């Protein structure tokens, strides 16, 4: 093993997995934990203080996504928001029709995919560009469809899915269907108020944009069209029960406001860093494959305008992600591949499989995800560390290189 450098750097390029909390979000969290200890549903001043902290955050989130405060349903995670969207829409429509259907894209996060499969729903194909097959959507859009869930930005590839065409199909063929979008990965990079303005349900997660873990939100345009899934005191507009995570919600609101206000500047800066990183990697490793870009895009699109600014998703033929990630971490670079399973092992990517990648090619994927705190130095160092590790593995590995289309 190559000796670690005298001072191993600590480069974090896994912002799509989670982000460090913003200092002002931490401050808000600590302050709310101190001042807002009362139960927000009570009637005394301690309760009112807590309630105000929650509702202040609700205003901030509403402004950040172009919603009304009463449309913001706080919950415990992005996953819970996704579950509420799918199960909530299904069970609400089930009050009116027998056996409603649900559907999602094949590249959805497991938080959507598993609920949809649990309900026997339809998983709609995507193309090599990662975009949902609109003809298939048309074929399943009918009066019994309760919800179509399609994520705005994919967590592995960073591909941005335009929602307007889906809205048009649902409006025409599936009047009862709600359009849900998991915007957990999108929010740091995309103005959700515009891109998801046509969605009925939008999922958010605090820890993807400098907020805390354990707080999510579902934006619900019309509360009469979904049914609550966590039953109890009905704290969140009767749609979600459980005493509010006051400190977490307060920090979520602060982080959301900050991300929204700084987004335009962050996107411009980070996109340039991302492009320079991928270009530098390609210069060192010419057979690098980039998902949904260039040769892997049906129309050869190469400017990455189809991807979120922080996403650098590449694959090195003949390399195994787990081995690569191990070497990268030993050299001070933290990244990831596909989603991790409960044990922490890397699972084969269902996203790349859905985009038509062979299992062998997908096995060598690497997700370098940048965020609001990523610096030029991070990218410069990563551009040195990654090729070195790839070359080391290629020198030792006996795995045959898969053919790239």
């Amino acid at each position, binding site marked *: *093993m*190559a000796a670690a450098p005298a001072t191993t750097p600590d480069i974090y390029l896994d912002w799509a997995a989670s982000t460090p909390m913003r200092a002002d979000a931490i401050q808000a969290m600590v302050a709310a934990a101190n001042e807002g200890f009362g139960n927000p549903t009570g009637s005394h001043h301690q309760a009112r203080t807590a309630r105000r902290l929650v509702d202040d955050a609700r205003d901030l989130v509403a402004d950040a996504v172009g919603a009304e405060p009463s449309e913001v349903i706080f919950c415990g995670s992005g996953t819970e928001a996704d579950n509420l969207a799918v199960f909530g829409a299904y069970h609400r429509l089930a009050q009116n029709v027998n056996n409603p259907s649900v559907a999602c894209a094949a590249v959805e996060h497991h938080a959507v995919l598993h609920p949809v499969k649990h309900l026997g729903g339809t998983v709609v194909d995507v193309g090599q560009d990662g975009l949902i097959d609109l003809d298939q959507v048309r074929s399943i859009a009918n009066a019994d469809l309760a919800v179509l869930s399609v994520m705005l930005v994919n967590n592995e590839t960073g591909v941005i899915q335009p929602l307007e065409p889906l809205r048009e199909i649902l409006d025409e063929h599936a009047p009862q269907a709600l359009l849900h979008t998991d915007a957990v990965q999108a929010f740091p990079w995309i103005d959700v108020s515009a891109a998801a303005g046509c969605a009925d349900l939008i999922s958010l997660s605090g820890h993807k944009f400098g907020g805390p873990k354990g707080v999510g939100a579902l934006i619900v345009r019309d509360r009469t069209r979904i049914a609550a899934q966590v039953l109890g005191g009905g704290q969140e507009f009767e749609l979600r029960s459980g005493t509010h995570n006051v400190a977490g919600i307060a920090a979520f609101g602060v982080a959301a406001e900050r991300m929204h206000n700084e987004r335009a500047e962050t996107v411009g800066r980070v996109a340039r860093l991302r492009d320079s990183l991928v270009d530098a990697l390609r210069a060192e490793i010419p057979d690098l494959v980039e998902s949904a870009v260039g040769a892997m895009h049906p129309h050869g699109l190469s400017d990455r305008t189809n991807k979120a600014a922080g996403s650098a998703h590449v694959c090195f033929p003949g390399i*195994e992600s*787990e*081995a690569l990630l*191990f*070497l990268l971490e*030993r050299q001070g670079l933290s990244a990831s591949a596909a989603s991790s*399973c*409960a*044990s*922490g*092992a*890397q*699972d*084969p990517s269902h996203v790349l499989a859905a985009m038509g990648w062979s*299992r062998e090619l997908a096995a060598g994927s690497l997700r370098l995800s940048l965020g609001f705190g990523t610096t030029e130095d991070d990218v410069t160092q990563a551009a040195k560390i990654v090729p070195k590790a790839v070359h*080391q*593995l290629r020198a*030792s*590995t*006996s795995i045959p290189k898969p053919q790239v289309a």
Partner: protein
Amino acid sequence: MQVMCAMSGGVDSSVAAALLRDAGHDVVGVTMKLWGGPSDKGCCSVSDVLDARRAADLIGVDHHVFNFGDDFTRDVITPYVTEHQAGRTPNPCIECNRSIKFARLLERADALGFDAVATGHHVRLVDQPDGTKRLGRAADMAKDQSYVLHMLSVEDLDRVLFPVGEMTKADVRQVAADLGMRVAAKPDSQDVCFIASTTSRQEFLGDRMSFTPADVIDREGKVVGHVESVQLVTIGQRKGLGLQGGGPPQWVTDVDVAGQTVTIGNRSDLLSAFVDVDEMVWTGGAAISGDLLAQTSAHGTARSAHVDGNRVHWSEPNERVAPGQTVVVYHDDVVVGGGIACRDRD
């Protein structure tokens, strides 16, 4: 040295990692995720990954999980099913050691620049005059695992470490307790790790292959019983043969899947003067003949035998070995080779 320690979440590998760290090695703990199906024990369950991770946390070493699920399915599960389908009695733990722990993991460790791979197996490395190493029995004979690691070559043995092989199991547990490990009293894994306790071998195999019925015949060829699944019958078996009760004890002495017959006999019919072996692997590469010891099950007794090529002649008649089972050859307490029992060659 840079040592990758395979950590299953059990007490042995947890203590192995601790001993390596104490010896001054740069240790990284690795748990292999091998089986995606239901499992509640062995190497494959999420709770065992937790145990391994927490042991690594306690002793201050990094812990990683490697997913070798595809390899495990291809190299362990599939052969396990096809062997049963052919009426043989495979040992999947040996196949896992052969193709996963000491092939796939060793290869991964090499690629990542590690000097050695360590496990918590109870075996010892025995230095030879020529500088090479051989696989020797554990200090704790009751826990000896040399049988299931017999396939390791001289080249393999040069880059593996077995830190607990010199210790008794009681000592291992004491060290774990002294370190404050939660797994100090965790029970030993016993069964096949990929078959959950809520299912059976029959159910597991039944989802992956079809069974055929067979007549049970005595040595004169008379039909005396019936089984529904000839593929699940093993030489030496006494129960589940559909026999009329009351007679003297009878054992299965032969299983013929193609002919759909199971032959039974009395104790003396079960004995044989020899066992034929396929796929022999010799530790040092070259075949060895002579008066040695041979062992036919993981915790069986090593019996004296004359080994001649692919045939092991017992000094005293010994119970027949089910085809598919492993026969390991020892010189005193040192493994010299091993292979897989086959049907008698005429």
